[in-house]
């Protein structure tokens, strides 16, 4: 069952982009849209959007970089680790839970490290990879998405995004504990 699901999703992922291009441009052709001209017209905005993101992403990434390079994460982990025991989260994966919303590449490295030390099929290994797959890099998305339209006051987006991350981590711990019948 899981295998069928996996192969179906993989198939769709593989053909999605060519199909998408085919359907969109083909439909345009049928509707007598001047496809080339319209495509180029739309593509022009690609540069502007990318450039608009720069200041927002610089602000976000450099702050995260400073925080990570200072080793402050160890301090935060030490403060929070008594709390993680309450929800059944092993202390080993706490840094991953904290880093996940901050840095995509950083949390990927940490996940790999945890699986290397504990084995990919161990409780910690499965939990680490599940946690990595249960959330996205909130701060990066916030900077890029809001940056592209010049949003500076992000209102409740960040707290809500962090609550989402928190629930993702809780959900991961819950389901993996169940899987290992802990």
């Amino acid at each position, binding site marked *: 069952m899981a295998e069928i699901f996996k192969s179906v999703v993989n198939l*769709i*992922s593989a053909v*999605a*982009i060519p199909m998408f291009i085919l359907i969109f*441009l083909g439909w*345009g052709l049928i*509707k007598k*849209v001047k496809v080339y001209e*319209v*495509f180029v*017209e*739309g*593509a*022009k*905005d*690609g540069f502007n*959007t990318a*450039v608009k993101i*720069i200041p927002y*992403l*610089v*602000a976000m*990434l*450099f*702050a*995260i*970089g*400073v*925080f990570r*390079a*200072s*080793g402050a994460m160890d301090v935060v982990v030490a403060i929070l680790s008594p709390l993680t025991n309450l929800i059944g989260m092993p202390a080993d994966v706490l840094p991953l839970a904290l880093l996940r919303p901050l840095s995509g590449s950083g949390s990927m490295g940490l*996940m790999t490290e945890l699986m*290397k030390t504990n084995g*990919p*099929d161990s409780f910690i*290994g*499965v939990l680490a*990879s*599940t*946690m*990595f797959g*249960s959330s*996205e890099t909130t701060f990066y998305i916030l900077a*890029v*998405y809001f940056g592209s*339209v*010049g*949003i*500076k006051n992000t209102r*409740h*987006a*960040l707290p809500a995004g962090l*609550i989402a*991350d928190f*629930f993702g981590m809780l*959900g*991961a711990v*819950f*389901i993996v504990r169940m899987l290992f019948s802990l």
Partner: protein
Amino acid sequence: MLNYVWISLLLIGIFTAVGRDINDEVTNTYRNGVPLTSHFETQRKLAAVNPSYEGEIVIPAASFNQFYNISSAQTEIRQPAVLTTLSSGKQRIEMKISDATPVFWKDMAKAAGGKEKLEAVVNSVNTGNQEITFTLEKVRYVKIKAVTKAALDFADTAVTISLGLIGVMALWLGIMKVGEAAGLLEQLTKLMTPITRQLFPDVPSNHPAVAAMIMNIAANMFGLNNAATPMGLKAMEELNKLNPKAGTATNAMCTFLVVNTAGLTLIPATAIAIRAGLGSADPGMIIGTSIFGAGCATVGGLVAVKLLQRLPKYKREMEVAETEEKNG
């Protein structure tokens, strides 16, 4: 909130770095100026006349750990090194950083300026038992240097990432524009109206933003990251057209963002690939658990965003915006 989180990251980072460097200085973590004695293994016997030797510095793990007050060294240290005699008669040691280098020395070399080697001044050579006593170069302000480097490097990374988006952005925006002109986006929007009306009540159900958001979410589900970001940004652009006050996020934008940060995907491809690389017996076993985890994140995030938008503080930020709009 972003203001405070942002400045906290910076302040905590800098203060921690300063604190750690002061601590390193006080406890002399890197044993600056403290001589270390080791066996020096070479082909030739050590003698006063030979100007240069290639060999290995050999230190038992226990002595190394004791010297630095650490526990990371597991095996005997065998560090390739070159001993040279300068014209002044002083002797120096140069250690090339390699796989044989203990982690602690690797970190020290990195902290000493990101060099590929560590240098030491030789205090004395005992030709009788092939032992040398040397003092390593001073290592200082490790964390402060790391913070400085990170700030500059990440500013650079941000630009690289942004510019790297240009190509895919242009491609997808071009295709989307054709879909828009052909009326395909409208068709797609109609199909999903029952769901989107619940999630984004402020967005008219026939608005192009809806189509872009649906395509972004679908692309995320199938792990098409290259397509998801441009579509998401297109959606933000469309949502911003409905924004009464430029520069402030609307409820719909916040909701859309939360759906994205929860990152619901059917196949967590990165994690599976890494698991496979590390020899997992069943790399795909996390598909189910990840969908569950990301599902929790999505539901929790959506409930949170809908509750938070009712808070007077966040309501006011939009209301103020509307009054300003009227006055302006």
